[in-house]
Protein backbone atom coordinates (compact mmCIF):
# COMPACT_ATOMS: atom_id res chain seq x y z
CA UNK A 1 0.00 0.00 0.00
CA UNK A 2 1.16 3.54 -0.71
CA UNK A 3 2.16 5.81 2.10
CA UNK A 4 -1.07 7.74 2.57
CA UNK A 5 0.56 10.22 4.93
CA UNK A 6 2.65 11.75 2.18
CA UNK A 7 0.99 10.98 -1.14
CA UNK A 8 -1.54 13.45 -2.51
CA UNK A 9 -5.13 12.17 -2.35
CA UNK A 10 -5.65 12.72 -6.07
CA UNK A 11 -2.81 10.32 -6.81
CA UNK A 12 -4.31 7.49 -4.78
CA UNK A 13 -5.57 4.49 -6.73
CA UNK A 14 -9.19 3.56 -6.06
CA UNK A 15 -7.93 0.57 -4.11
CA UNK A 16 -5.82 2.78 -1.85
CA UNK A 17 -8.64 5.30 -1.50
CA UNK A 18 -10.95 2.49 -0.34
CA UNK A 19 -8.27 1.38 2.09
CA UNK A 20 -8.12 4.95 3.40
CA UNK A 21 -11.90 4.94 3.83
CA UNK A 22 -11.62 1.70 5.82
CA UNK A 23 -8.63 2.48 8.01
CA UNK A 24 -7.71 6.15 7.58
CA UNK A 25 -7.25 8.29 10.68
CA UNK A 26 -8.92 11.67 11.08
CA UNK A 27 -6.10 13.56 9.43
CA UNK A 28 -6.06 11.32 6.35
CA UNK A 29 -9.85 11.46 6.13
CA UNK A 30 -9.73 15.25 6.37
CA UNK A 31 -7.43 15.34 3.33
CA UNK A 32 -9.80 13.00 1.48
CA UNK A 33 -12.80 15.20 2.35
CA UNK A 34 -10.99 18.43 1.42
CA UNK A 35 -9.84 17.01 -1.91
CA UNK A 36 -13.15 15.56 -3.07
CA UNK A 37 -15.29 18.13 -1.26
CA UNK A 38 -14.16 20.84 -3.69
CA UNK A 39 -15.66 19.28 -6.80
CA UNK A 40 -18.61 17.87 -4.85
CA UNK A 41 -19.46 21.38 -3.66
CA UNK A 42 -19.28 22.63 -7.26
CA UNK A 43 -21.67 19.90 -8.49
CA UNK A 44 -24.00 20.45 -5.57
CA UNK A 45 -24.00 24.24 -5.95
CA UNK A 46 -24.89 23.99 -9.66
CA UNK A 47 -27.95 21.91 -8.86
CA UNK A 48 -29.07 23.65 -5.69
CA UNK A 49 -27.91 27.22 -6.18
CA UNK A 50 -27.81 28.12 -2.51
CA UNK A 51 -24.41 27.57 -0.96
CA UNK A 52 -25.64 26.54 2.49
CA UNK A 53 -28.00 23.93 1.09
CA UNK A 54 -25.22 22.73 -1.24
CA UNK A 55 -22.98 22.19 1.79
CA UNK A 56 -25.72 20.12 3.44
CA UNK A 57 -25.90 17.97 0.30
CA UNK A 58 -22.11 17.45 0.38
CA UNK A 59 -22.26 16.40 4.01
CA UNK A 60 -25.09 13.97 3.24
CA UNK A 61 -23.12 12.57 0.31
CA UNK A 62 -20.05 11.91 2.45
CA UNK A 63 -22.19 10.20 5.10
CA UNK A 64 -23.63 8.03 2.32
CA UNK A 65 -20.14 7.30 0.96
CA UNK A 66 -18.75 6.37 4.40
CA UNK A 67 -21.72 4.10 4.98
CA UNK A 68 -21.79 2.39 1.61
CA UNK A 69 -18.27 2.32 0.16
CA UNK A 70 -18.00 -1.42 0.79
CA UNK A 71 -20.80 -1.93 -1.73
CA UNK A 72 -18.77 -0.08 -4.41
CA UNK A 73 -18.15 -2.84 -6.94
CA UNK A 74 -15.39 -1.25 -8.96
CA UNK A 75 -17.35 -1.36 -12.24
CA UNK A 76 -16.71 2.38 -12.57
CA UNK A 77 -14.13 4.74 -11.11
CA UNK A 78 -14.62 5.53 -7.42
CA UNK A 79 -14.98 9.21 -8.35
CA UNK A 80 -17.76 8.36 -10.83
CA UNK A 81 -19.58 6.43 -8.09
CA UNK A 82 -19.15 9.37 -5.69
CA UNK A 83 -20.36 11.78 -8.40
CA UNK A 84 -23.64 9.84 -8.76
CA UNK A 85 -24.10 9.82 -4.98
CA UNK A 86 -23.51 13.57 -4.81
CA UNK A 87 -26.06 14.23 -7.57
CA UNK A 88 -28.64 12.02 -5.87
CA UNK A 89 -28.16 13.77 -2.53
CA UNK A 90 -28.44 17.19 -4.19
CA UNK A 91 -31.61 16.11 -5.98
CA UNK A 92 -33.11 14.91 -2.70
CA UNK A 93 -32.60 18.33 -1.15
CA UNK A 94 -33.84 20.03 -4.32
CA UNK A 95 -37.08 18.05 -4.11
CA UNK A 96 -37.38 19.01 -0.46
CA UNK A 97 -36.73 22.72 -1.00
CA UNK A 98 -38.17 23.41 -4.43
CA UNK A 99 -40.28 20.31 -4.96
CA UNK A 100 -39.28 20.12 -8.66
CA UNK A 101 -42.44 21.86 -9.81
CA UNK A 102 -43.84 21.17 -13.26
CA UNK A 103 -43.54 24.54 -14.99
CA UNK A 104 -44.29 25.45 -18.62
CA UNK A 105 -41.53 26.38 -21.05
CA UNK A 106 -43.73 27.06 -24.10
CA UNK A 107 -42.72 30.71 -24.56
CA UNK A 108 -39.12 29.70 -25.21
CA UNK A 109 -39.74 26.87 -27.68
CA UNK A 110 -39.17 27.05 -31.47
CA UNK A 111 -41.93 28.47 -33.62
CA UNK A 112 -43.48 27.04 -36.80
CA UNK A 113 -45.87 28.47 -39.37
CA UNK A 114 -49.14 26.89 -40.43
CA UNK A 115 -47.29 24.53 -42.81
CA UNK A 116 -45.04 23.29 -39.95
CA UNK A 117 -42.07 25.13 -41.46
CA UNK A 118 -39.60 26.63 -39.01
CA UNK A 119 -39.83 30.34 -38.36
CA UNK A 120 -36.20 31.34 -37.99
CA UNK A 121 -35.27 33.43 -35.00
CA UNK A 122 -34.18 36.96 -35.82
CA UNK A 123 -30.73 36.24 -34.45
CA UNK A 124 -28.60 34.48 -37.04
CA UNK A 125 -25.02 35.33 -36.04
CA UNK A 126 -22.84 32.26 -35.64
CA UNK A 127 -21.60 32.36 -32.08
CA UNK A 128 -17.95 32.16 -31.30
CA UNK A 129 -17.65 30.58 -27.85
CA UNK A 130 -13.91 31.31 -27.73
CA UNK A 131 -14.38 35.04 -28.07
CA UNK A 132 -17.50 35.09 -25.98
CA UNK A 133 -15.97 33.23 -23.06
CA UNK A 134 -13.16 35.74 -22.79
CA UNK A 135 -15.67 37.98 -21.13
CA UNK A 136 -15.76 36.90 -17.52
CA UNK A 137 -19.17 38.39 -16.91
CA UNK A 138 -20.58 36.34 -19.73
CA UNK A 139 -19.93 33.10 -17.88
CA UNK A 140 -22.00 34.32 -14.98
CA UNK A 141 -24.69 35.46 -17.37
CA UNK A 142 -24.88 32.00 -18.95
CA UNK A 143 -25.35 30.51 -15.48
CA UNK A 144 -28.06 33.08 -14.86
CA UNK A 145 -29.80 32.10 -18.11
CA UNK A 146 -29.76 28.44 -17.15
CA UNK A 147 -31.27 29.40 -13.79
CA UNK A 148 -34.12 31.06 -15.68
CA UNK A 149 -35.26 27.72 -17.11
CA UNK A 150 -38.19 26.10 -15.34
CA UNK A 151 -36.85 23.76 -12.66
CA UNK A 152 -38.02 20.49 -14.27
CA UNK A 153 -36.15 21.39 -17.48
CA UNK A 154 -33.09 23.00 -15.86
CA UNK A 155 -32.30 19.86 -13.87
CA UNK A 156 -32.46 17.59 -16.91
CA UNK A 157 -30.18 19.96 -18.86
CA UNK A 158 -27.70 20.07 -15.96
CA UNK A 159 -27.60 16.31 -15.52
CA UNK A 160 -27.33 15.45 -19.22
CA UNK A 161 -25.25 18.29 -20.69
CA UNK A 162 -23.18 19.54 -17.76
CA UNK A 163 -22.76 16.48 -15.52
CA UNK A 164 -22.75 14.28 -18.65
CA UNK A 165 -25.00 11.52 -17.31
CA UNK A 166 -26.72 9.17 -19.76
CA UNK A 167 -30.42 9.39 -20.57
CA UNK A 168 -30.94 6.10 -18.70
CA UNK A 169 -29.20 7.41 -15.57
CA UNK A 170 -31.21 10.65 -15.58
CA UNK A 171 -34.40 8.68 -16.11
CA UNK A 172 -33.59 6.56 -13.06
CA UNK A 173 -32.56 9.48 -10.85
CA UNK A 174 -35.59 11.64 -11.65
CA UNK A 175 -38.00 8.71 -11.88
CA UNK A 176 -39.31 9.75 -15.28
CA UNK A 177 -39.28 7.81 -18.56
CA UNK A 178 -36.32 8.01 -20.95
CA UNK A 179 -38.64 9.52 -23.56
CA UNK A 180 -39.58 12.21 -21.07
CA UNK A 181 -35.88 12.90 -20.36
CA UNK A 182 -35.25 13.39 -24.08
CA UNK A 183 -38.27 15.65 -24.53
CA UNK A 184 -37.29 17.82 -21.56
CA UNK A 185 -33.65 17.91 -22.64
CA UNK A 186 -34.59 19.06 -26.12
CA UNK A 187 -36.95 21.73 -24.85
CA UNK A 188 -34.41 22.95 -22.30
CA UNK A 189 -31.70 23.22 -24.98
CA UNK A 190 -34.08 24.97 -27.37
CA UNK A 191 -35.09 27.41 -24.65
CA UNK A 192 -31.50 28.04 -23.64
CA UNK A 193 -30.62 28.71 -27.27
CA UNK A 194 -33.35 31.32 -27.43
CA UNK A 195 -32.22 32.91 -24.15
CA UNK A 196 -28.56 33.00 -25.21
CA UNK A 197 -29.14 34.31 -28.72
CA UNK A 198 -29.28 38.05 -28.03
CA UNK A 199 -26.24 37.74 -25.79
CA UNK A 200 -24.19 35.84 -28.31
CA UNK A 201 -25.19 38.18 -31.12
CA UNK A 202 -24.18 41.16 -29.03
CA UNK A 203 -20.85 39.64 -28.03
CA UNK A 204 -19.86 38.70 -31.56
CA UNK A 205 -20.66 42.06 -33.16
Amino acid sequence: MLDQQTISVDLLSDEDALDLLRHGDRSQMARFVRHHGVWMLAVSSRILGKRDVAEDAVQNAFVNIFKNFESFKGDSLLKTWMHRIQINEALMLLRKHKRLKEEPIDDLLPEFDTGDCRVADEWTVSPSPESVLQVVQFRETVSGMIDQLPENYRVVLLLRDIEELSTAEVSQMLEISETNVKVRLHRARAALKKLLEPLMGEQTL
Partner: protein
Amino acid sequence: MKHGQPSIRRRLHGIMFKLPMMISCREFEDFIVDYLDGELPSSQMRIFNLHLKVCRECRDYLKSYVAARDLAKRALDEDAAQSLVDVPDDLVSAILDARGEGSPS
Protein backbone atom coordinates in the same frame (compact mmCIF):
# COMPACT_ATOMS: atom_id res chain seq x y z
CA MET B 1 -44.35 37.00 -32.97
CA LYS B 2 -46.45 37.81 -36.08
CA HIS B 3 -45.45 35.82 -39.14
CA GLY B 4 -47.84 37.15 -41.80
CA GLN B 5 -48.34 35.34 -45.10
CA PRO B 6 -45.75 32.58 -45.79
CA SER B 7 -43.38 33.44 -48.64
CA ILE B 8 -43.39 31.41 -51.87
CA ARG B 9 -40.24 29.61 -50.74
CA ARG B 10 -41.86 28.66 -47.45
CA ARG B 11 -44.98 27.47 -49.22
CA LEU B 12 -42.84 25.34 -51.55
CA HIS B 13 -41.09 23.93 -48.50
CA GLY B 14 -44.46 23.12 -46.99
CA ILE B 15 -45.39 21.13 -50.10
CA MET B 16 -41.96 19.48 -50.41
CA PHE B 17 -41.94 18.34 -46.78
CA LYS B 18 -45.07 16.33 -47.43
CA LEU B 19 -43.33 14.16 -50.07
CA PRO B 20 -42.24 10.59 -49.22
CA MET B 21 -39.03 10.43 -47.13
CA MET B 22 -39.52 14.06 -46.15
CA ILE B 23 -40.42 15.49 -42.77
CA SER B 24 -41.56 18.92 -41.68
CA CYS B 25 -39.44 21.23 -39.53
CA ARG B 26 -41.72 20.45 -36.61
CA GLU B 27 -41.09 16.72 -37.06
CA PHE B 28 -37.35 17.40 -37.49
CA GLU B 29 -37.34 18.63 -33.88
CA ASP B 30 -38.14 15.16 -32.57
CA PHE B 31 -34.99 13.70 -34.11
CA ILE B 32 -32.43 16.16 -32.77
CA VAL B 33 -31.58 14.63 -29.37
CA ASP B 34 -31.10 11.12 -30.78
CA TYR B 35 -29.13 12.53 -33.74
CA LEU B 36 -26.68 14.32 -31.43
CA ASP B 37 -26.42 11.23 -29.21
CA GLY B 38 -25.58 9.15 -32.32
CA GLU B 39 -28.65 7.02 -31.63
CA LEU B 40 -30.70 7.61 -34.78
CA PRO B 41 -31.40 4.37 -36.67
CA SER B 42 -29.98 4.53 -40.23
CA SER B 43 -33.44 4.81 -41.82
CA GLN B 44 -34.27 7.87 -39.71
CA MET B 45 -30.77 9.26 -40.22
CA ARG B 46 -31.40 9.35 -43.99
CA ILE B 47 -34.66 11.23 -43.47
CA PHE B 48 -33.04 13.63 -41.01
CA ASN B 49 -30.09 14.36 -43.31
CA LEU B 50 -32.38 14.87 -46.30
CA HIS B 51 -34.35 17.52 -44.43
CA LEU B 52 -31.13 19.12 -43.24
CA LYS B 53 -29.90 19.31 -46.83
CA VAL B 54 -32.95 21.13 -48.15
CA CYS B 55 -33.86 23.34 -45.19
CA ARG B 56 -31.60 26.27 -44.44
CA GLU B 57 -33.66 27.31 -41.40
CA CYS B 58 -33.13 23.94 -39.74
CA ARG B 59 -29.42 23.94 -40.62
CA ASP B 60 -29.02 27.34 -38.96
CA TYR B 61 -31.19 26.26 -36.08
CA LEU B 62 -29.19 23.08 -35.43
CA LYS B 63 -25.92 24.99 -35.60
CA SER B 64 -27.08 27.50 -32.99
CA TYR B 65 -28.65 24.76 -30.87
CA VAL B 66 -25.33 22.87 -30.70
CA ALA B 67 -23.38 26.10 -30.10
CA ALA B 68 -25.65 27.07 -27.19
CA ARG B 69 -25.33 23.59 -25.69
CA ASP B 70 -21.52 23.64 -25.97
CA LEU B 71 -21.34 27.19 -24.66
CA ALA B 72 -23.41 26.28 -21.60
CA LYS B 73 -21.10 23.36 -20.84
CA ARG B 74 -17.95 25.43 -21.22
CA ALA B 75 -19.31 28.40 -19.32
CA LEU B 76 -20.42 26.30 -16.35
CA ASP B 77 -17.20 24.28 -16.29
CA GLU B 78 -15.10 27.44 -16.37
CA ASP B 79 -17.38 29.12 -13.87
CA ALA B 80 -16.90 26.17 -11.50
CA ALA B 81 -13.13 26.17 -12.04
CA GLN B 82 -12.94 29.90 -11.27
CA SER B 83 -15.12 29.73 -8.19
CA LEU B 84 -13.55 26.64 -6.65
CA VAL B 85 -13.03 27.30 -3.01
CA ASP B 86 -11.58 25.26 -0.21
CA VAL B 87 -14.07 23.22 1.73
CA PRO B 88 -14.83 25.25 4.87
CA ASP B 89 -13.21 23.89 8.05
CA ASP B 90 -16.52 23.60 9.87
CA LEU B 91 -17.94 21.49 7.04
CA VAL B 92 -14.90 19.19 7.10
CA SER B 93 -15.27 18.82 10.87
CA ALA B 94 -19.00 18.12 10.59
CA ILE B 95 -18.36 15.46 7.96
CA LEU B 96 -15.63 13.81 10.01
CA ASP B 97 -17.78 13.92 13.14
CA ALA B 98 -20.60 12.31 11.19
CA ARG B 99 -18.25 9.49 10.29
CA GLY B 100 -18.06 8.94 14.01
CA GLU B 101 -14.54 7.63 14.30
CA GLY B 102 -10.86 8.56 13.96
CA SER B 103 -8.73 10.55 16.31
CA PRO B 104 -8.10 14.30 16.08
CA SER B 105 -5.06 15.20 14.00
